[in-house]
């Protein structure tokens, strides 16, 4: 691994912030109250925007400042605000998502982090000193988001898991490659924004059709339950 003392102060900052992002992923994973989860997601977005800013300062790439602003406005302000508003409209502010086996959940998360470090091991150091760690951390954030989507039964929590996966991807792009080409980043940001809007639409559809936002109740479609069906031409 890298000798940390040889890094500049800014690079060390990037490191610390990346570690905090990983921590915020674990907080998201274990947070059972919806509003608090949304806030932790916003914090994660802010951390990633900060990292982007620092990477931009280290490498003096101007277009990363745009990415940082974009992340800040999308992931920290707009999307959490939208989710918050929808949760309020659906009267779910006080709802608590029951987490079964929290200890197992955390252990699973830790295993995923170890796996990510193992998967990133063969990546040789190229010219970016902290690359391997950052790739490992971002892969962990992606996998933790996926893990959250698997274990949580609540639609809003699943969406947060999905969005935090996107955060992990963005972190990978920023920290290991100094940002993708601008056109790609704009495209990805646009897709994320549209996805967030569509998620909002779906909250209403799902709560209309099954009168709850618990994905366990989305079980109408399977191979064996198709006899008595309305026609859908």
């Amino acid at each position, binding site marked *: 691994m890298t000798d940390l003392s040889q890094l500049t102060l800014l690079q060390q900052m990037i490191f610390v912030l990346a570690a905090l992002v990983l921590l915020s992923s674990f907080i998201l994973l274990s947070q059972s109250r919806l509003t608090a989860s949304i806030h932790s997601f916003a914090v994660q977005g802010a951390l990633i925007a900060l990292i982007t800013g620092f990477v931009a300062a280290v490498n003096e790439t101007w277009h990363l400042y745009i990415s940082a602003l974009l992340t800040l406005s999308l992931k920290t302000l707009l999307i959490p605000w939208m989710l918050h508003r929808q949760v309020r409209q659906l009267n779910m502010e006080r709802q608590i998502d029951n987490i079964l086996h929290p200890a197992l959940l955390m252990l699973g998360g830790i295993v995923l982090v170890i796996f990510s470090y193992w998967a990133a091991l063969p990546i040789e150091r190229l010219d970016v000193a902290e690359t391997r760690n950052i790739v490992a951390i971002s892969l962990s954030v992606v996998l933790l988001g996926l893990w959250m989507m698997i274990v949580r039964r609540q639609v809003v929590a699943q969406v947060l898991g999905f969005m935090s996966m996107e955060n*992990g991807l963005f972190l990978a792009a920023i920290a290991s*490659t100094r940002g993708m080409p601008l056109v*790609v980043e704009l495209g990805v940001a646009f897709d994320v924004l549209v996805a967030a809007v569509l998620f909002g639409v*779906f909250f209403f559809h799902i709560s209309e*059709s099954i009168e709850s936002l618990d994905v366990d109740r989305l079980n109408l479609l399977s*191979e064996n339950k198709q*006899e008595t*069906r309305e026609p859908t031409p």
Partner: protein
Amino acid sequence: MILLLVILGSALLGIVILALIKQPGVAGWVNLLLSGLQLAAAAALAYDVLQHGGFHGYSFNIDAFNIYLVVLTTFVGMTTSIFSRPYMMQVLQERRVTSRRLRLYHSMFQGFQFTMLLALTTDNLGVLWVAVEGATLATVLLVSLYRTPESVEAAWKYFILCGVGIALALFGTVLVYFTTQHLVSNPDEGLTWSVLLQHTAEMNPTVMSLAFVFLLVGYGTKVGLVPMHFWLPDAHSEGPTPVSAVLSGLLLNVALYALVRFKMLVDGALEESLHPDLAGWLMMGFGLLSFSVAALSLHRQRDIKRMFSYSSIEHMGLMTFAFGIGGSLATFAALLHMLVHSLTKSAIFVTVGHASHIAGTQAIEHIRGLIRTQPSVGWGLLLGVAAISGFPPFGIFTSEFLVLSATMDSWPWLTGILLGGLVIAFAGLFRHLHPMVYGAVPEHQSTVPANMMPVTLHLLLVLWLGLAIPAFLSGWLNEATLLISGEGLL
């Protein structure tokens, strides 16, 4: 270049225009007109490429591999919009959708076409990702267009599974960019495919193979590879019929196209390493698994649209397997199979739409006696299924035969699995088809207005491709084979 702009621009404009047109009748015609314009421009572009060869520049790349898919996409888009105009009007009259939702449908139909065509023609691997994700976003509200609890559930599954899958593909793309950005002088070109293809030998093989695993899982979700296929039968069976036709016929192809583009880079990067065929092996494994699982699943289906979506998984698995084998014969076969499968499968979905309309249900056990009630639909379904299960003289027989020959050449012991799978799939389709087409006619079953023109056209084309592949098309496919596998077949 101008033609390309016409194709993409008309689709992009269509999103806006169709969202604004309030009369559903007019919107159907405008949709048809735009699709026709795209087809005409694509045909002209194809003629141009035929005469002067492909080109790349301005972040677009047109070569033999994608031009035939562009023509295919616009063609199926055109015939589907011919079918969808009266069909959706009827759905509107039955008050299944409001006219506002029909506006959304037409607008997003063009949105879907736009993202497909952008994904096919772009030279930038990042934009390719954005476009494929855009295709999910455009179609997710179409799957839930009827707003039944089932369709909302199907759309949610589709959204989440494809979203996650495609996110993993983005991670793979980031890894590719991570190893390539040092190789090119202008870092903005680090994702430009045509530039990267010249630098494959210098790429880091470890990173590229790690990236390919993510890309395979990511784009593989969209291709419908087992075990990431769970969204596919739900989304195909709950969406409106025209959406099932384009999803099955076009979207799966485009995801596979993306995978093959990446495989070409990874193959180059791994040439000197210990496992030069790693990407091919992975694709063969996933392809064969999907093929076998889907062939077996065909037997236990009760919903007609679900059955045909499993058949799509089966064929996509076969194509992935063939691309995985590599070599000129298998690649040629896979390219041909992409073409004939799209044509046949979209024809089948259109016919199934009419059939379930006649019976008033999608449950296989209640669809009976189609050939007596409405011969055109019955025969359409019968011939379509005969074509899809690989009967000669249809084109799918040709491509499957080529896949089998290629397997016999390079992996003889896998031929048995393939043959067995084809027979099982054939049996699975025909045990359900026979009573649907011939069985006793239920009382009160009457004909519905059905436009079988798109189906006839598609099946005739598939028949033609089975009897004789026109010289220009085989030339194209050969050129694409040369591009992908490094050697031509003809």
